[in-house]
């Protein structure tokens, strides 16, 4: 089943929004880091993991989610955060380390939390799986609606937490979906060098749950498969595992020389960038006019600019506030 027209346009818009976000961050990240690149310096210091290329996964899945649904994301969280509806201004401010950021600068880009839309992420591989299962359990116990989706990378499927969480979710039959973004690399280590099976969908059989593999980084197909799994979870029929073939157009983090990639890999990937492809498809299918899409693109650009403006203009946190918010406020 194809997404509705509305969903398609939302997906395109969200992919573009995410891409513009990453492009702007990539640019701003370099402010203060030339001529000498030092991760500690600049407007945005620290590690920076961009999601360029992986947008179809985020939008194909999140098209089925509402604010009340739960998402746990990884060290590469921007596309998922945007697709889940995280407050863009406060997210950007957090990435900049501003007082107006989602956590007032305490978290940074790997620790984006927006409870209003039940979004969380973390920097440890596989760490989000347990909490997603727990949130799903919470909904089941409370009799409240809501599905929990844990996004992970293909490299994370070899971490113990993956196995434990899927087993637990299956044993407890909670509304949980694990979505694996298979971008073929875990930093410099290829999937083939780290994973004993070519595709992780086969691992679903270890938990007696449905497993799916989606080829081609195709947003419509992702949308379809995720839709089934999420509907299944909502219907109380338990968890699913979905692996999606995707790719990253960026380095693992900014500053990555990517010497580990085979020659030509990167160029070939840019040829199949999912965003121009989806644009063309919308046109080919008569789903949207060039003008409509240009409008969407312009709006996305403006939205990101606004978020950046918000972030830039916000104050830095008071240094001594580092000592606050360790424990919950009374």
């Amino acid at each position, binding site marked *: 089943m194809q997404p509705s027209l509305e969903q398609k346009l939302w997906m395109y818009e969200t992919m573009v929004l995410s891409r513009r976000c990453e492009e702007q961050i990539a640019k701003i990240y370099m402010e203060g880091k030339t001529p000498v690149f030092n991760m500690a310096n600049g407007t945005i210091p620290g590690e920076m993991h961009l999601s360029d290329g992986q947008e179809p996964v985020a939008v194909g899945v999140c098209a089925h989610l509402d604010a009340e649904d739960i998402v746990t994301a990884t060290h590469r969280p921007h596309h998922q955060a945007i697709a889940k509806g995280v407050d863009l201004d406060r997210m950007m401010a957090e990435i900049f380390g501003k007082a107006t950021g989602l956590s007032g600068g305490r978290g940074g880009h790997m620790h984006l939390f927006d409870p209003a839309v039940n979004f969380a992420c973390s920097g440890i591989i596989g760490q989000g799986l347990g909490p997603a299962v727990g949130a799903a359990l*919470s909904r089941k116990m409370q009799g409240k609606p809501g599905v929990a989706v844990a996004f992970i990378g293909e490299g994370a499927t070899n971490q113990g937490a993956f196995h434990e969480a899927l087993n637990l979710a299956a*044993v407890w039959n909670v509304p949980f979906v694990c979505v694996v973004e298979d971008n073929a690399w875990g930093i410099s280590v290829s999937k083939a060098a780290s994973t004993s099976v070519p595709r992780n969908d086969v691992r679903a059989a270890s938990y007696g749950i449905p497993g799916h593999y989606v080829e081609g980084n195709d947003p419509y197909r992702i949308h379809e498969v995720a839709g089934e799994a999420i509907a299944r979870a909502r219907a109380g029929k338990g968890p699913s595992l979905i692996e999606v073939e995707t790719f990253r157009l960026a380095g693992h983090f900014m500053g990555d020389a990517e010497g580990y990639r085979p020659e030509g890999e990167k160029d070939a990937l840019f040829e199949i960038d999912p965003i121009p492809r989806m644009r063309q498809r919308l046109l080919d299918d008569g789903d949207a006019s060039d003008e409509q899409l240009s409008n969407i693109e312009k709006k996305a650009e403006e939205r990101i600019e606004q978020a950046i403006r918000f972030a830039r203009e916000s104050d830095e946190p008071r240094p001594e506030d580092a000592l606050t918010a360790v424990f919950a406020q009374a």
Partner: protein
Amino acid sequence: MTQSNNRKLTIARAMAESVAQEMRTDDRVFVMGEDIGELGGVYGNTRGLLEEFGKERIRDTPISETAFIGAAVGAAQDGMRPVVELMFVDFFGVCFDAIYNLMAKNIYFSGGSLKVPMVLMTSTGGGYSDGGQHSQCLYGTFAHLPGMKVVAPSNAYDAKGLMTAAIRDDSPVVFMYHKRLQGMGWLGTEPGATVKTPEESYTVEIGKAAIARKGSDVTIVSLGLGVHHALKAAEKLSEEGVEAEVVDLRSLVPLDRDTIRESVARTGRLIVVDEDYHSFGVSGEIIASVTEHDISVLKAAPRRVAFPDVPIPFERGMEQFCLPNADKIIAAYREIEAG
């Protein structure tokens, strides 16, 4: 005072009673862990709960500590108030990421926009030849890492009140109970841990030490089982006219440095008793907390009676050689006296 308030409970029963009372009044409270259902917990602290609350709210788990402690964090953030058990603290190594990088840090990472109201209860301590992977205290390990409160009661009254406080706390609390204080028939127990415990619900404030015994000549600081060693040593010392003050920390995080400093300021002498490993742990921290504050109060060098820096041996004689006890505390006092 009603008659019920004269009733004595074991720590195990006090913990279970607190959890039951909170579960009755708050639907969000539930329990997860290995063998906490039908079995009632290896150390008895969930006994009777399955019968009253059923399998949904008293959940036996697979042997998947990373997943179910992570799940507790997710449930806590989603509005539940899980009480989750790590059967032996020694097992923390298979799931410490879920504990110290997730449970302990998400409030901070979220800038306070999240609450993580959960209790991680875990058994500690040796002395019954359970070997080096089932006998540790690891107090220092948990107390060192920021973001989690850490309590360790020495008696049933405190256990019940601290558990109730922990369940009601919006921050994560690690509740470390000592196996030799639980009152399990098959393990033997320190009688001093089984004390009068009111039936009605009450809290003991997390972060306040107790003066378990008043004294003027030396301050003995300890927690858990160590408090009972200290009390025994104090009784013996008293026979020779030396009055030891015993400080029961009750909580490591927050650490009640004021009470410790105030006591040492009065006694001028300090002994720390800790069943956890000697170096880089609780005993060093207590001594440093006193000396960095005001070195002039000390009439003699402080002493510690702690587990030496070796894995815990199985054999009884070897293990007892390593464990703190009243005689070692008295010996430490003799050293102080000797200057």
